[in-house]
């Protein structure tokens, strides 16, 4: 305040105001502290595994990194497969809800898709192992017979259907509602004038989408996919229950030996782990944390660059 001293009005400093605003700042800062402490504690508990003698690590490994490499590969591979299935499907579903379904139905259809997000992951695991894997196994047999010459689909086919492709399908179902919800929101934000201009030029509905909706929504689709990727990378129970795991690096989709993921490996081995094994698992968790953190940060940066997509404005 640069007003003259005699005109300056000083508001009373109320004790309630100060306590309350301090409390809110404190709560906000707590979140930053928590996030930092997640990193610190994980690093602290990982260090013993990183510096340990290789002979103490689980399995016969030369170092922690050779222990983590197949797991990291499996994590990324499963997530990418899931993304390949989920993204086109989600865009289709989102378009259906935003531009094709009757207006009155659209919101209820949105709720229905959101229901998929409400199902707990352990139930997805149960469904994957009890319903989906047996249902897909015959399809896999046919695929191996028909396309076995492609390395991706090389045999011998898994007898149970508990392969990485089944896992990818389950993961795709799990991330579909996330990507769909974001895409739907973005598609609805397409400037009405762009769409109407395209319509006025005689464009069909698909041409409107191709010319106006998709170009406008592209950054949003990318970031939605990356958020889905982050979820797929960290998903644990569905993978742990569905996959028959082994520590290998293999691109084959339909065989009975599949690379497992970091998260599933932790869930399966943590209850029985002891000593340095616990530290090795936590260290692999740290790897997962860093990877998902990077993926999510990139996604958020893309969203924040065009604030219109955050949905919170």
């Amino acid at each position, binding site marked *: 305040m640069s007003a003259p001293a005699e005109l300056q009005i000083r508001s009373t400093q*109320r004790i*309630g*105001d100060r306590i*309350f*605003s301090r*409390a*809110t700042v404190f*709560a*906000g800062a707590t*979140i*930053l502290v928590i*996030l930092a*402490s997640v990193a610190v*504690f994980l690093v*602290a*508990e990982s260090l013993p595994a990183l510096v340990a003698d290789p002979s103490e690590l689980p399995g016969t490994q030369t170092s922690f990194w050779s222990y983590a490499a197949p797991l990291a590969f499996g994590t990324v591979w499963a997530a990418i497969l899931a993304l390949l299935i989920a993204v086109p*499907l989600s865009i*289709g*579903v989102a*378009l*259906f809800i935003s531009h*094709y379904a009757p207006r009155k139905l659209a919101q209820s259809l949105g709720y*229905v898709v959101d*229901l*998929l997000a*409400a*199902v*707990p*992951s*352990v*139930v997805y695991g*149960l*469904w994957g192992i009890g*319903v*989906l894997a047996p249902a897909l196994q015959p399809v896999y047999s046919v695929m191996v017979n028909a396309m076995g010459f492609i390395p991706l689909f090389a045999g011998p086919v898994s007898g149970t259907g508990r392969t990485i492709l089944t896992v990818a399908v389950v993961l795709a*179902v799990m991330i579909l509602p996330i990507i*769909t919800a974001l895409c739907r929101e973005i598609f609805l934000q397409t400037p009405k004038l762009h769409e109407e201009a395209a319509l006025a030029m005689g464009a069909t*509905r698909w041409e409107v989408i191709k010319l106006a909706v998709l170009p406008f929504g592209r950054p949003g689709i990318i970031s939605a996919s990356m958020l889905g990727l982050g*979820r797929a*990378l*960290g*998903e*644990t*129970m569905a993978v*742990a*229950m569905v996959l028959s795991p082994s520590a290998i690096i293999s691109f084959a989709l339909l065989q009975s030996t599949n690379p497992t993921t970091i*998260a599933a490996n*932790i*869930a399966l081995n*943590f209850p029985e782990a*002891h*000593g340095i094994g*616990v530290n090795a698992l*936590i260290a692999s*968790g740290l790897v997962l*944390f860093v990877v998902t*953190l990077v993926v*999510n940060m990139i996604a*958020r940066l893309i969203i924040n660059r065009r604030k219109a997509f955050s949905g*919170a404005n």
Partner: protein
Amino acid sequence: MQLVTGTQPGPATDGSEITPEPSTNSPMANSLTAGMLPRHTSLWILLASWVVSAATFLILYLAEQSAPGTAAGSEGESFNYIGALVVGTALYLVVIYLLSRAVEGQRKAVDRLVTGLVAVAFGLALIPLISLISTTVAFGATRFDLTFFTNSMRNIVGSGGGGLHAILGTTLVTVAASIISVPIGLLTAIYLVEYGRGHLARGITFFVDVMTGIPSIVAGLFAYALLAIFFGPGIRLGIGGAIALSLLMIPTVVRSSEEMLKLVPNDLREAAFALGVPKWLTVLKVVLPTSSAGIITGITLAIARVIGETAPLLIIAGFTQSMNYNLFDGRMMTLPVFVYNSYVSQGTDAQAYVDRAWTGALTLILIVMVLNLAARIISRIFSPKPGR
């Protein structure tokens, strides 16, 4: 009768099997509807494709049933509904594309094809939902009885027993997680909306967004690492599960509360200030009550999100067969872990374990659905009527 195809020459040879529809039989062709398929063509073609495909599959199925040689191989094989549906839909897409291309031209044909594909995508998304819910209800109903909700698994080896200890554990852990995360989350949201300016606020917003993406298993590892420092390795405590869950819950609470607080019109705040109400009382007595419905909805949804989390609880809360009323002492069973454990480590009489797993899953889904429903009802009943 003339079929006006407009300026689209169209490859007439492709559509040689198509007969012009009778609706254009009027003496003068309507120039607005010329070159268009009649209104409900696509619907009829869809039904026809399904019928054709179902008939084909039925013939194949009957042939296979009656053939004595293959009967042994296909024993117990029922009529392939899914195959018929898939083939029928694919047939529809092909037919509508070719037909529309012949009559309406390339652009309209692509439009119709995409419409079909988009609808197919939605249908595909519905299949897992329907399959999942129907199987869970079907398998879960076998043990959805009083015993399940009144017994724990203590001293149970075969059939019988139930998930009371798991339901209790889930309740305790979730309540504790809410007690930790709701104050922090709500106060942070208030800070971001009412006070936050500058770097701190921007940093918090960004990291809350980032926090939404923390894998649940990492939250479990964090809780373990935190407790292991104080209690030594191998620690399993119910409160650890609460810590892990609150890590997952806080960002959801912050985001939803923040959006609800932003919806409170500034006029209300200014009116309060004009009356000389201090800021903290304005927030407590004006802003929060106005947005309470939305905030409660958001918290309910956040609870619904974390109540099904399995991985962190598997890591830090562990599993047990007995009741445990104390969050700070010993292992604590929770419902998702109960489902997982029953299915993975089946004892003697494996079917009893599988049945319990599905019943646990059904209970879990019901809890989540009820919470979601409650959230929607709360937001509908208590939300302030829009007066703007």
